[in-house]
């Protein structure tokens, strides 16, 4: 069977360059150039000690009381260079095979529309990638580790559009 990520204008990039750099990038990433296991960020070190405590801000809470738990902090932040590195990983880890080039949506939902099935905070996106989700999203935590997942989170957050376009109209423009 067939399916293909359709790369649209806003997400077209040089995938050849990204793909060629991918393996090298992954190894350098995991070996330390982009956040080494020898000198981890404090947050990452704490997470490695046990499962991250994720508090789902979008979920309803009984009596309006949130469960206890420290929200994960993204050690990478919104650094554009790290977002670009995450974009390389997005191809190298075959994410685009399901979510489409630029995360525009294919088998998996769009990741570029600013809307999120399982929450759009950094911690929630981290949980989706690290642990997987029940409709076929694989758990990549075993392959990537925490240091590999955060740049992906930063990349995906960088795709969020300025405006949420809820309306598709066929009425002729005046």
């Amino acid at each position: 069977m067939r399916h293909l990520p359709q790369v649209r204008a806003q997400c077209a990039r040089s995938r050849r360059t990204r793909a060629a750099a991918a393996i090298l990038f992954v190894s350098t990433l995991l070996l330390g150039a982009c956040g080494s296991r020898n000198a981890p960020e404090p947050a990452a070190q704490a997470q490695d000690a046990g499962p991250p405590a994720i508090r789902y801000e979008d979920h309803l809470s009984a009596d309006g009381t949130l469960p206890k738990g420290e929200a994960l902090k993204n050690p990478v932040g919104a650094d554009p260079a790290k977002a670009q590195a995450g974009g390389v990983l997005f191809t190298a880890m075959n994410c685009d095979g399901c979510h489409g080039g630029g995360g525009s949506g294919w088998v998996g939902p769009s990741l570029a529309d600013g809307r999120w099935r399982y929450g759009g905070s950094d911690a929630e996106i981290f949980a989706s990638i690290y642990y997987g989700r029940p409709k076929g999203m694989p758990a990549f935590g075993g392959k990537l580790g925490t240091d590999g997942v955060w740049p992906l989170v930063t990349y995906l957050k960088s795709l969020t559009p300025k405006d949420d376009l809820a309306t598709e109209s066929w009425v002729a423009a005046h």
Partner: protein
Amino acid sequence: MSVFKPTASNLIRITAFLTAALLAASTSTVMAQKAADGDWAMPGKDYGYTRFSPLSQINAGNAAGLHPVWSFSTGVLGGHEGQPLVIDNTMYVVTPWPNVLYAFDLKSEGYPLLWKYRPAVSPNALGVACCDSVNRGASFADGRIIYNLLDGHTVAVDAASGRQVWSTQIADLSAGETTPMAPLVTKDRVIVGASGGEFGIYGWIKGLDLKSGQVLWTARNMGPDADMLIRPDIFKPPYDSGPDSGRQTWANDSWKTGGAPVWGSVSYDPELDLIYYGTGNPAPYNSEQRLGDNKWTSSVLARRSKDGALVWAYQFTPHDMWDFDGTGTMVLADLVIAGKPVKALVHFDKNGFAYTLDRATGHLLVAAPYANANWATKIDLATGRPVMDPSKQTGASKGNVKGICPSLEGGVSPASPPAYSPKTHLFYTAINNMCMDYAAVRAAYMKGTPFIGANTPYSAGAGGQMGGFIAWDAGTGRKVWENKEPFPTWSGTLATAGDVVFYGTLDGWFKSADARTGKVLSKFKVGSGVVGNPIAFRGPDGKQYIAVYAGPGGDWFLLAGDIRSDDPADVRPPTDFIKDIARHTSQGGIVWIFGL
């Protein structure tokens, strides 16, 4: 709107029975055959997958009076490919994931359910299936409805009680295998295969025991001869291939992750005791990672149903570098070609050529383009190989190769089985008219994730319309007539002895047309796009009815105009090549029945 009246229908049924008995005035075998003519018990109606119904009450003179008599929401919104079955006044419907099986009582007003069966099926299948949550239908045999769950199981359900008789795991989700195809039952074997050409699976087909569901044989579609169930004394390919062809034609052992899924249909010739099926694309889409012919991907394979031994194989697209799967239906028909009777196999390939083969030997008799095809100028009948245009060859080192026709959605989608009428001697099929650019990149294999390596934006082919419906003469390789359609056309086809053919469109029209001229005789907007396959059956009142599903899907590009409405967290921009489709349809899941 009318409904069946049980009392009247009983009367008519008795009358029809007596009439048939008097007219036939012969053995019970003939009468059983007569009754079966009004049933639809396997995906393609018969073993040859002709999708031809001998019912003739609906004809070119009265088809304008067709109207809906019943409809039912399946409660599921995935692509409704496949078709219902009708056996003994019960209609069986399998939904897309979560693969609910409904049994409708056609003898009671409003067709209430006799039972429904809701299997436990993994939601993970949704993310591993490359191309939506589709199911391509069930087969009836030995009093059981047999079909595949998307998560790699085959189940047999008692047709009378709805109780599960057996369930067998046949595929491995964690390796990228899913199972949307419709099993075919040949005597005492259930033949099944798996999708996963986009996940680098080691493609296979299996024969299960009809009684127990036990896997009796597994044949790989590539790899060493032993894995492929190739024995030199039995395997006689029509064109030279050499020993271990499934391994020798793949550089660097790339066959191990080479794809070759089985997601289309299976046909069967009981006299030759051969099953016929197409294999899908080689993986990955970047052909430079798997140099060689990549046998036996994008091919037709003929095997013995009893033990799976490979008897012959023919490759439509050697070293496929366009995702031209060979999984389209193999229609078996006895034709007269150049004055000689031929046991033929006719196949509309994704690559834009229609092939007519001798189904006993695999020799190519006719090959001609039925759609705009520019990757090859012709198929050489002496060697069986395409004569290719070097400027349309793809690979990571070739950059973005533009203007390849057809697109990888196929000139005909393998999800859209054609039909053959022995009355008009013509084949009928829905077609696509699309081209593509193809930019291959190196892909890295990671088990259970996509293994693709190409971007392939589409555009409409010459003329601007993206679909159509054609009549085809397979003896001469000639198109007889064509109805143009604005959108890619993805339904299966039904041909009937009334010389009326039926198909549906992506923008939600269900149409009947004159089999000899193509003139549209009736059309009705069925509420959602059609990618299902119409069937004909005889109701308990003795009248002819037509059933079809509405609900588009089966390939994400069909939903790419953001026709989805069920997930607020998934909003997609309109695509440039099919931007208007969301104006005409949203998702759906409706079973329709039409009558006069």
